[in-house]
């Protein structure tokens, strides 16, 4: 990370996950794989020491009868499941005699697990990363941090598993098909009683209920679902009643009870029967000033939502994110990760991911919007303004504005609460959907926007750099306007308006000083003049276009930003000029000298097509050309794949147009 960035990194305390995000981005560049099991013996030694640790833990936990043991159990559930999985992997390789020899107390261990309802109820996906950090006491074992057992595809670590399923598998490993002596028979019968206990015993102290159901001829499988449903709905109505009536209700729920309930949910959050209770807890606000729900509950629910194990109403999700900021940050990072690892340059898909994340809807609450926005800002700075992040931010903003309109025609919160540092009139102007304005009049709002931005950027003397960045950051949220500028300049035959030229130069290179920007504007204006002249020409050749784009002075002296802007103009020209279509392929082949530029062109085409769809622009021919070119280029890129994550990250090698976008923030 450049030192400038480090100084810039004013990571507010609530953004503690942003660092881990960056780490995870770095980690995903490396190919993640667990080392093959080099020494089985060593593995077993490791396992034995873990075994002792968990046996002690289980003895302390007993049957999860006290508050402290419940809490401790909940905290350790994921690690315990990882251990149990390792245990199974080891057991299935041994015959039961060896098992008993190696782990003489295995019976004690398994029996204790069978009596712990929290463990029996738990289900979670274990990721490879988690497994590598699953060591319960990192300091206890210094040299063996790597995971011992290797797993092929479809191994049990890669899927969702209930702890009790793994426990059952462990028990199955111990049972003898044909016991040879009374000792083995005894062991068999003991394991059978444990299995029966896990699966069917009615173990809570209401004997007559069990008798009644059996008397009616029902098996536990018949009445557990109904019983659980009734218990859950009773609790839900109790919570609602409490929430509405507060102190007046007779059955007032003590805060400790609510906490305890939320703790129970940690293990059971992915059980569909629990969804109503989870929802009721999230939307329940007690009458105490401090948070009554257990922090682990928020984490478990958030994870289940992100992994699509449950689906809750948006309102409940918003409550979750408002009550627990780390969850919101995790959700945002999860979205980022998904966007990064998904196929590049498919805005439709990006839109789907973003909408699917529920973040735009949740962002209608200003507090959530501002956190998510802050994280986008960090991501933009950390990736040196990567186009992928830029595009994601634009799509996010668009989805957010849609959600905002859908939620309330009249804004519930003032715009100022979403964009506290921007002038309201600028935000209002940017918030206008170009679609609502006739195409012929687009230059007017653009001019207006440009003037307002310019005033902020150039008008100030103090803090002007910072103001410049903030203005740019605000502007690029609204990709709809930013992308129109080049097209507008090309299509009008009149003298290109200064305001539009400025906006074009500013949006692509916000850090330039006014002198530098003026020079860019001059360059662009020259090329633009030539292109406008060629626009109506019936016969065009690739050379004409190259000549139009060529430098007036010696080659390669143009700044990178300027080169990029000219490519942008050329591409727009190819799509819109009647004679451009026939030479498009030739020109693009010539232009796409490097992989970076190819990606830039792909991005441009994808964005353009997406924008035309959004704005309902009727342009059958340009659309067809753009789509054909896009398909071709994508196919071309597919044959020479690059590490996408590395592409997003590793900008340090080749100078990127926005490499210094952070500098002016200083």
């Amino acid at each position: 990370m450049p030192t400038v960035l480090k100084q810039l990194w004013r990571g507010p305390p609530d953004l503690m996950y942003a660092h881990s995000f960056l780490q995870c981005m770095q980690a995903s560049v490396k190919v993640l794989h667990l080392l093959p099991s080099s020494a089985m013996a060593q593995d077993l030694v490791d396992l034995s020491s873990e075994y002792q640790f968990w046996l002690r833990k289980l003895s302390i936990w007993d049957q999860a009868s006290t508050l402290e043991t419940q809490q401790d159990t909940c905290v350790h559930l994921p690690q315990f499941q990882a251990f149990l999985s390792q245990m199974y992997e080891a057991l299935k390789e041994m015959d039961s005699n060896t098992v008993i020899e190696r782990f003489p107390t295995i019976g004690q261990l398994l029996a204790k697990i069978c009596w712990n309802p929290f463990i029996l109820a738990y289900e979670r996906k274990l990721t490879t990363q988690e497994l590598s950090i699953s060591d319960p006491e990192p300091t206890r074992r210094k040299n063996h941090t790597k995971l011992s057992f290797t797993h092929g595809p479809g191994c049990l670590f890669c899927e969702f598993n209930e702890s009790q399923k793994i426990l059952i598998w462990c028990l199955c490993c111990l049972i003898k098909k044909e016991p040879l002596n009374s000792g083995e028979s005894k062991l068999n019968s003991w394991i059978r009683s444990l299995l029966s206990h896990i699966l069917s015993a009615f173990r809570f102290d209401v004997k007559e209920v069990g008798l009644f159901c059996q008397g009616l001829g029902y098996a536990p499988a018949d009445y557990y679902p109904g019983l659980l449903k009734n218990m859950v709905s009773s609790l839900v109505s109790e919570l609602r009643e409490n929430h509405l009536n507060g102190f007046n209700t007779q059955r007032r729920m003590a805060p400790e009870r609510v906490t305890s309930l939320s703790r129970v949910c940690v293990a059971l959050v992915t059980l569909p029967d629990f969804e109503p209770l989870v929802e009721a807890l999230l939307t329940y606000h007690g009458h105490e000033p401090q948070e009554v729900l257990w922090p682990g509950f928020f984490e478990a629910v958030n994870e289940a939502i992100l992994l699509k194990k449950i689906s809750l109403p948006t309102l409940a999700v918003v409550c979750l994110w408002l009550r627990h900021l780390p969850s919101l940050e995790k959700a945002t990072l999860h979205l980022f990760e998904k966007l990064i690892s998904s196929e590049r340059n498919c805005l439709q898909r990006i839109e789907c991911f973003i909408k699917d994340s529920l973040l735009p809807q949740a962002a209608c609450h200003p507090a959530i919007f501002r956190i998510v926005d802050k994280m986008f800002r960090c991501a933009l700075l950390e990736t040196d303004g990567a186009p992928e992040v830029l595009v994601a931010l634009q799509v996010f903003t668009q989805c957010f504005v849609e959600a905002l309109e859908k939620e309330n025609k009249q804004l519930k919160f003032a715009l100022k609460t979403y964009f506290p540092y921007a002038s309201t009139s600028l935000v209002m102007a940017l918030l206008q959907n170009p679609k609502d304005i006739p195409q012929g009049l687009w230059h007017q709002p653009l001019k207006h926007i440009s003037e307002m931005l310019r005033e902020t950027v150039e008008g100030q003397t103090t803090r002007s750099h910072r103001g410049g960045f903030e203005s740019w950051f605000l502007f690029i949220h609204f990709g709809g306007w930013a992308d129109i500028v080049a097209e507008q300049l090309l299509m009008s035959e009149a003298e290109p308006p200064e305001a539009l030229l400025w906006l074009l130069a500013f949006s692509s290179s916000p850090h330039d000083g006014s002198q530098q920007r003026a020079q860019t504007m001059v360059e662009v204006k020259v090329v633009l003049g030539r292109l406008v002249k060629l626009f109506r020409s019936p016969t065009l050749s690739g050379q004409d276009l190259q000549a139009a784009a060529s430098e007036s002075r010696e080659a390669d002296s143009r700044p990178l930003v300027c080169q990029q802007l000219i490519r942008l103009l050329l591409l727009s020209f190819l799509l819109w000029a009647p004679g451009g279509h026939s030479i498009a392929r030739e020109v693009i082949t010539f232009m796409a000298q490097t992989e970076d530029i190819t990606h830039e062109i792909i991005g441009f085409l994808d964005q353009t097509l997406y924008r035309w769809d959004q704005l309902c622009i009727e342009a059958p021919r340009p659309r067809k050309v753009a789509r054909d070119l896009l398909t071709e280029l994508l196919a071309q890129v597919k044959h020479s794949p690059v590490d996408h994550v590395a592409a997003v990250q590793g900008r340090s090698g080749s100078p990127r147009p926005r490499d210094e976008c952070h500098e002016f923030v200083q």
Partner: protein
Amino acid sequence: MEPLLQHLERFSEVLAVSRTTHVSTWDPATVRRALQWARYLRHIHRRFGRHGRIRAALERRLHNQWRQEGRSGPGTAPGLTNFQSLGRCDILLAVRLLDNRALGHAAYHHLLQQLFPGPGVPDTDEETLQDCLSRLARRRSAVHMLHLCGYRENPVVQEESLVKTQVELLLERLQEVGKAEAEGPSKFLSRLWERLPQNNFLKVIAAALLLPPSSPRPQEEELELGVPQTPGEGRQELVRWLLGKSDIMVVFCRNLPARLLASVVGRHPALSRVYLGLLTDWGRHLHYDLQKGSWVGAESQDLSWEELYNRFQSLCQASPPLKNEVLTTLESYKAQDGDFEVPGLSIWTDLLLALGSGT
């Protein structure tokens, strides 16, 4: 169709045997076949869920069989009682076999292999038996955990989850019994009465009688659920049964709390008349003890004055029509006794005075 029905019959027999010691003769192959049958029937359940005629035919056969089993002796668990139960017949079989200690080691070992093949993702969309069983176990733990922390009994009996669940099961069963045999419900209930803990049974009956009259379910949902739930019918069966069994009715009125009874009879006028009759009977057993200056029972099992008063008072508070009925009845007895206004002469006068000042 007939082969399918025979299959069904045969499987019901297997299911019945699965809880007995006969399974000691089963070998791994038998276990495998039994599970295969169960899987086949589950498939039938999924396949014909929306075929009204096939469902009806299957259910008829199940009911016939149930009736025959019922005659062979009380206490047999029905196993398959309706079309819906076909959907979980494999779990039922699996759990019964897992619990059956008579199953030999080799057969049990094979059962485990079949039920819990271990990790590895099957390609089918269908939920595996392993998943079903583990969800059952999760739910069991869930119930246990909720009981352990957070859950409190609901003071309103009919809303109490345990009672509510039992009510649902009872009404469902009553309806099936009603379909299977004409005099079924009453006989069935009497059989239950002999076998089950009585106080819990009474509480469940009371809660069932308190259910609000339900609106008819839409047809589609009925198809989906398999069991058309019309608790109304079941409730009428319960009322009829109680009215037919005076000894049980006495226990019902004697053992349940006053307020619960008052709300139950408030919903069912036929019961309120009997209840009122019983209360006056119990009242007649009391005589005025001049020395103590209060009404006392001749025998120890007689209802005390306080309890009697409490019951009348609850009735008066239950609903205005019930209150009128109670007061009119008491007035008429008071008139029969000579219409005294002085306390200590007629229990009815004293009850009316107490109620007058108390309400």
